[in-house]
Every structure is written in C-alpha cells, then in structure tokens.
C-alpha cells in the first residue's frame, strides 16, 4: 500500500505539470512523501477495544460444552458418523484449529476496518477549480465517443475525482446564456450531480460571459484554475478579457465528418418562388449527399451534392410554384453532426391593404400611400363619398375632409376642417413650428411603434389646427402644445389624425413623411402576425398582437403548444423566445376580430469555424500557480480491511462446510 506505484507520474502538458492520470492539464501534484509522512496511523483507534470480541470466540473453543448423557445400544455407528467432523469440536482443550485462526483473523480485520488504518500522503495542490462545460450545438458532434459533450462530462467527472480536500469546484454551463450550475462545492456527489445535470443545446457559446462568470467565482487570495471544456471548432483560442488566473482550454473533437446546410432562403418573385440553399463541408474529407427539397410538406426536388472539405456550394431553384409558403431542405446522408442536416424557411405573406382616399387631389399623399406594394389604393372625390363605400376598404383616408360620422373601418384624417365628429373636435388653425415626438407613458406599444424610424428634427409646420382628442387617442407629435399627429384605438376602430395641412409644412419633403404614413397604415390595418419569417435558434420572434387578442398559441415543431396570454386589450408587440428547436412554428392569435395565423421557421444557422489544427489543450492566462499549498492527506484503508475480512469469512465458510 505504500509502494511507489501509487504515486502518479507526471508529464508536461502545455507548460503545466499534469498528473498523468487526469491528462487534463490540471496542476494537482501528488508528491512522494517521506518515510515519516507515510507511517500508518489509525483514524479511530478506540475501535481496537473491540478486539475483546476474540476472547469469547477462544472461550468457545476452550470451554467444554455441557451435554446430556444418553445410553445407546451401541456407539459403533455414531463414532463413525462424526469421525471426520470431530475437528469442529475441540471442546476440552485448545487445539490448533484452522477455523479458530480464521475466525480470529475475521475479527481482527473487522476491528481494523473500524479503526480505519490510514497512511498519510503529502499532496501539493493548486486550489479551486472552475469548470466551464460547453453546452453549445457544436458539442453534439459525435466524432469522439460518445459525443463531444459526453467526453466533456467524463473529463469534468475526472476533475471532480481529483479535487483535493479543502478545495472547491464550480460548474458553469456555457451556452448563449451561461449559467452557474454549482458554486464552490466540496461535495463530490453534488459536483457529479451538477455535471450530470448539464445539457447540450442548439445555442451558440458565449465565452466572454462564461469567463466573466468564472472570474466572479475566483476567490481572492486563493489559487483558482479555470478549465474550459469546449469543442474543437468553437473558435476559442484566446481569452477575450484579461484574467488573473490560469485557464486551461481543452478542445474536444476528432476527425469530423459534417456536411451541413448553412443558409436557406426563398422569395416570391416574377410569378415564381425562388429558393437558395447553401451547403458547407465542415469535415476534413470530401463529402456527398442528396439534398431533398420539400415545398409545403411535399417533396419537390432531389439534388446530389458533393462538397470538398472546407468548401461550400449553392443550390438554386428559380421556378418553384408561387403558391409555396413553407420550404424545407434536408440532407439525406447522416454524419457526425445531426443538427445541420435540415433547414426550414417561410416566405412572408404580403398582406394587401385596400385604402380609400377621399381627396380633391394630393400628390404627396397619393405617392406615399402607393409606396407599399401591398396597398391597393382607390381615390374618390369628397362629393362622391358615402359611408357605405367605406365598408369595402380596410382604411379610409380623408384629406381635407371631416365626415359627419366616422366609418366603421380604420380612419386617417389629414388636415380636417373645423368641426366635430364623434368626440373629436377640430378647432381653428394656429401657428405652429418645430415638431417634436411625444411618447406618452400610457401609449401602447403599437402606438409607440408609429415613431419607428421617424425623425421629426428637420420638420417644420407653419400652421396647425387645434384639436380636442378623444380620450383613447394619444398624440404622437406636437408643436407648441398643439397635437400634430395622433392615433388611437377605440376598441372597435382605429383612428389616425394629421392635424395640419401638408402644404403648410416641409414634411412631405422629409424622409419621415413616407415612413410615418407607412407606419400609420400598418397601425390602422395590421396584417402581419409575426415580425420575422425565419430566425436562428434562440432568437426572439416579434409577434404583432391585434386589439382584443387575449391569447397566442404557438405550436412548436415537436407538436407541443406554447401559450402566450396578453394582458392589454390594445394591440401591441409580444416576443416569443423559446425558439430552441429548429423547424416550423405555427402562430395563432385567439380572441381578435378575426383569427390570424402565421408561420415562422427556426433554423440551425450558427457561425461556425472549421476544425482548427491547434493543440488539444491550450494554457491561457496567468501561467504560474500562486499560493500553492501543501497538505497531508490521510488515505483511508478501511475498505481494504473490509475486503480482507470478507476474504477470511469466505475461507472460514469454505473450510467449515466444504465437507
């Protein structure tokens, strides 16, 4: 037990002395102690008192058993029957008996196990360890067994086993949002449980945030080492920030075979749907596969793909049917990486808006309204306008006209004359000036969105009408206290107001004019449900919530449904963030004036590095170990005594019952 073979040997690994048992670059030195340091000792010597148990055992061999006399016809057969087992009963005098010796040895071994013999070993160690385990998509690769992530967990467990008493270990899961799984624990069971609780995902890595987290765990005055277990192609080769502790970067990976889709997009153009797929070979050898293209769930095309290592190819489809809405591309050949074998995309549907412009003629306004190709514009002179006309349109724009009653659809009033309609009263013109945007704290998100990309700093208005706004209409832009632009939602219709004559301002010449008109159109007739048709995993998707929508159901690729409940009755924007699984997501808004459905796709597109050929283990940061401490570690041998006792018991049983 005190042989030199117990002392691990070392070899230099990236400049650090590394125990050959761990191969992790961790500086845990187990020095060979001197003779005195390795003397045996007993951790609980009082247990030796239990040796007294041997006395009754010996007495049982010495004392004569009291037996009852019985006269039998003949002992002839009895004597022969017990002739060869008589060794079990040396009743009267203590005779040499192997059974007795074995039983005494059992007692001795058990008592020694309770006394916990131990020899001491002097160990020099470097202190605490912070393990950062990469949980990103790249760790899913199976170019090493069982996977890069599995190999990382094994190495983390090995680090846990080598943790010396008095030191703590922390575990950090490194993903797009790094998380502290375990902070400064000495308990190996807890450490192992924390390591086993790590899960590989589809996100990218955030090494900076992870390292910052590790820095906060480094105890001042103590020696702390950070071990980063990441993938070989994570691209991490240097520290993004200066740290005061050594960092050992272990890059896990082998001969990767990975042909993956890195880009996928599609548009409607020229009466067709056009699509492009980019396939890249991340492996070290040439790879080929078939690529299957599905449109709206139907197989549309199959093309062979062959890509040299480190290269990429682009595949184009230019004459797919225009009715296609959802496309999926799949590589048929499996390899070491599963996540990038498929990609999805959704072509955003153009929501057409029919707009009725009631005007005597306005060049700037007509131009601004027709910029958006989704707008179908109809113009009618004021004398021909009737309320019944409005029902056929999504939006009615009154230019220099104030109707007697507001139509039942969304309405935009531009420079209305004095008068009253509903609870809106339009007053006399008064001088105005510079325009400033106003964001009311009570304004809904979609009202605030009206100011998106709008800059009023160069806009000047000569005169504007003073208006008394209904309570549900909020001003967006004002000049000298006079609301110039306002918008609101009554719960049944939406209303927009531009309270000045465009001719009395320089606004139509500013870029903010068409932008504001477009924002107003989107506000008055919201058609989109999702703000992005295709995103990468873990990216948020904006959801446009119509007024009255109380719930949004999002059906995920695995068939489960997430529900988002809206608390505001007004329209607005919500963000869906659980886009951790690639595939199609179906969004349904429930409770609005009309049920709205839309899809978006989540793709596994990450910026990825090619496998680097650098060292597997990199030593970064501070290169020497501070505050190295030595301690004497008792090596408990109770388990060995227990095994010895078991062996003696087995031998005693065999000897007693073998015949």
């Amino acid at each position: 037990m005190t042989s030199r073979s117990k002392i691990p040997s070392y070899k230099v690994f990236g400049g650090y002395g590394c125990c050959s048992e761990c191969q992790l670059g961790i500086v845990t030195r187990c020095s060979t102690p001197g003779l005195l340091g390795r003397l045996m000792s007993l951790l609980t010597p009082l247990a030796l008192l239990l040796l007294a148990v041997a006395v009754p055992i010996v007495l049982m061999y010495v004392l004569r058993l009291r037996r009852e006399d019985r006269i039998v016809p003949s002992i002839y057969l009895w004597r022969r029957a017990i002739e060869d087992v008589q060794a079990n009963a040396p009743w009267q005098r203590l005779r040499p008996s192997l059974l007795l010796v074995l039983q005494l040895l059992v007692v001795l071994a058990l008592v020694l196990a309770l006394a916990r013999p131990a020899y001491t070993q002097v160990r020099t160690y470097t202190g605490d360890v912070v393990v950062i385990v990469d949980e990103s998509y790249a760790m899913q690769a199976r170019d090493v067994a069982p996977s890069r992530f599995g190999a990382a967990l094994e190495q983390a467990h090995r680090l846990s086993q080598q943790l010396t008493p008095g030191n703590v270990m922390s575990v950090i899961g490194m993903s797009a949002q790094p998380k502290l799984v375990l902070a400064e624990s000495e308990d190996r069971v807890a450490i192992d449980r924390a390591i086993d609780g790590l899960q590989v995902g589809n996100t990218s890595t955030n090494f900076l945030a992870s390292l910052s987290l590790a820095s906060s765990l480094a105890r001042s005055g103590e020696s702390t080492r950070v071990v980063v277990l990441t993938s070989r192609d994570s691209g991490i080769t240097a520290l993004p920030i200066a740290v005061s502790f050594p960092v050992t970067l272990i890059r896990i990976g082998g001969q990767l075979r990975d042909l993956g889709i890195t880009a996928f997009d599609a548009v409607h153009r020229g009466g067709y749907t056009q699509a492009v797929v980019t396939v890249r070979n991340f492996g070290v050898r040439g790879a080929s596969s078939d690529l299957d293209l599905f449109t709206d769930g139907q197989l549309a095309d199959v093309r062979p793909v062959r890509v040299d290592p480190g290269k990429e190819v682009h595949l184009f489809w230019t004459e797919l049917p225009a009715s296609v809405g959802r496309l999926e591309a799949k590589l048929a050949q499996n390899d070491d990486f599963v996540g990038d074998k498929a990609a999805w995309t959704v072509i955003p549907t153009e929501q057409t808006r029919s707009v009725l412009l009631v005007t005597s003629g306005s060049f700037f306004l007509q131009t601004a309204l027709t910029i958006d190709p989704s707008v179908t514009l109809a113009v009618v002179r004021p004398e021909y306008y009737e309320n019944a006309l409005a029902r056929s349109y999504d939006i009615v724009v009154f230019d220099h006209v104030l109707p007697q009653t507001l139509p039942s659809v969304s309405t935009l009033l531009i420079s209305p004359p004095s008068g009253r309609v509903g609870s809106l009263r339009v007053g006399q013109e008064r001088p105005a000036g510079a325009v400033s945007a106003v964001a009311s704290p009570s304004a809904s998100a979609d009202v605030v969105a009206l100011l998106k990309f709008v800059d009023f700093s160069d806009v000047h208005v000569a005169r504007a009408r003073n208006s008394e706004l209904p309570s549900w209409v909020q001003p967006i832009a004002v000049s000298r206290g006079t609301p110039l632009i306002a918008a609101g939602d009554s719960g049944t219709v939406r209303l927009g107001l531009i309270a000045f004559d465009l001719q009395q301002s320089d606004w139509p010449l500013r870029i903010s004019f068409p932008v504001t008109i477009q924002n107003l159109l989107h506000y008055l007739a919201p058609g989109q449900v999702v703000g992005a048709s295709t995103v990468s995993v873990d990216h948020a998707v904006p959801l446009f919530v119509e007024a009255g929508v109380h719930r949004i159901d999002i059906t995920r690729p695995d068939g489960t449904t997430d529900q988002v409940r809206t608390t505001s009755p007004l329209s607005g924007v919500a963000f869906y963030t659980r886009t951790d699984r690639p595939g199609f997501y179906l969004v349904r808004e429930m409770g609005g004036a009309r049920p709205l459905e839309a899809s978006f796709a989540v793709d596994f597109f990450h910026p990825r590095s090619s496998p680097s050929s650098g060292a597997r283990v990199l030593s970064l940061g501070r290169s020497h170990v501070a505050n190295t401490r030595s301690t004497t570690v008792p090596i408990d041998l109770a388990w060995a005594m227990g095994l010895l006792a078991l062996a003696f018991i087995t031998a005693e049983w065999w000897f007693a019952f073998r015949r």
Partner: protein
Amino acid sequence: MGGQAAAPVRLFGFDSAFLRKLERLSLASRYPTAGGSAGPRRSKQYGTSVEFAEFRNYVPGDDFRRIDWNAYARLDRVFLRLYMAEQMTTVSLFIDHSPSMAFGEPTKTFTAARLAAILSYVALHCYDGVVVVGWGDQIDCQFPVQTGKKSIPRVWRAIADVRDAPSGPTDFTALRDYRGSRSRAGLAVVLSDFLTDTDWRSGLRTLRGKGLELSVVQILAPEELDPSLRGDWMLRDSETAGEVEVTISPRVLRRYRQELAAHTATLHEFCRRQGIAFVQVPSDISLEDTVLQSLRRVRVLQ
C-alpha cells in the same frame, strides 16, 4: 398343539391361529442332509422312503428284497431298485442376548426370542431337532438338541431363559466355542443386531466351517434405523461403556444413515458371498410380516 404348549405360548404371546399357520411351514434347506436319524428331509443317502432314486446292478451282499424281479423277468439281468433316504436335521438357533439387544420397543432380545420360538416351532413340528444357543461375550447358554413336538415347551422355556439371562457385550469370536457335532450339522439361524466392533465375519465363518447352513437375521431397533435425537449429547455405549460427544445436526444424522447403510451393505455382501441368507428386520415388525414375508422372502422358511 394342545395343552403342552399352552403355558409357553403365553411366554411369547402367540395365538393358536398363528401357530396353525406355522404348522404349514418348514425350514428351508438348500442342501440334502447328511447323517442323522430318520426324518422328513431328503438325505444324500439311499434309504427306504417311497421316493424312487435309481437302478443299480446287483452285487453280492445286496439285500435280496430290493431286487427288481420284474426287470429280471424282462431283461434276464438282476437290478437293484434304490429309494431315497429321508432323515431329520438339526436347527441351531444362535440368540444374541448382549446388553445392546435390550433396547427398542419391543426390545431386540424380545423380538429375537419370538423369532427363535417361531423357528423352533416350525422345526420341531417338522420333526427336526432344535438346539438353542445364547451368547454375548461368550456362549453362556446351550441347550442340547431337542426333537419332536413334545419338546416345544422345553425349547421355548430355554429360549425364554436365554432372553432373560444377562450377558456380556457381543463378541462374535465366542461362536468359535460352539460345540456342535459334525453329525448334527444342519441349519443355523443367527439372531443379532451386529452392532459390534468384534469380528463378526470370523464368527460366521466359524459356524460355516462347522457345516452349518447359515441364515442371518439382523434385528435393529427403530431408533437405530431412524434416530430422532437432536442437539448435544454424550452418548454412552450400553456394552462397552465407551462414550462419544456428538452434536446431532441434520448433517450428522445424514452421515449416521450413510454409515448404517454401509454397515448393512457390508454384512449383506458378506452373507451373499458366503451363501448365507440375510434379512434385516426392525424390532417392532409384526410377526405376520416377519414370518410370512421376510423369512420366506430370503428362503429361511418355505
């Protein structure tokens, strides 16, 4: 039987119906008798029975009365017509009445005495002679040969005396001292438990050497065949005062049964080789079973 045997019958508890069954039996002999008085058994010699043996040429000195005159008339030659002789034999009953035979319920001695009484009854009823020998460490009782049915009470009394007399430990070498005359060689039945360290082989060979046609009946008590003892005991030998400490466990009992089987097998094999009929009976066996089945099965009775 009549009144002559009425008193001895009570000694052994036989009833008249059982005795009538015995009267239909006889002791089996595998060899013709040689010598002795006239009796019912076929002899090696020619005699005057009604059983024709053979023809032989007349030689001067032959008895004229045995000349077959019919054959002389047909063949003109003189033949002598010979008939088988019929003689009695002697049945020697060796009863072991050592202290070990006093165990069992009923005791082995009691069973041995009843068997001897049965065998003697059968023998005397068939006009054979009966000799009763009791032995332990020596032959301490030997009653002279008795013949004829009238001798039954005397023989049974002698058997009862052997049963009740104390004796030393079993010693088969004592059988060498048996004074049986050669002319009285005949059947012999040895009744013993054979639980002894002494050389029983030598004793049996001695009797065989005296011309006796042997049968062996080993009588064992039920507790010897299937001991019911458990636990720790100091067992003392009833004959030798030897003792053995034993913790009787199922394993020890298993070993005891193995030793008993081996001992019985050795005895049986010896008897087979020596041409000795052997039967083992428990002391509590019923007389019906003993006589009508066990003894007949091994051809002691027929």
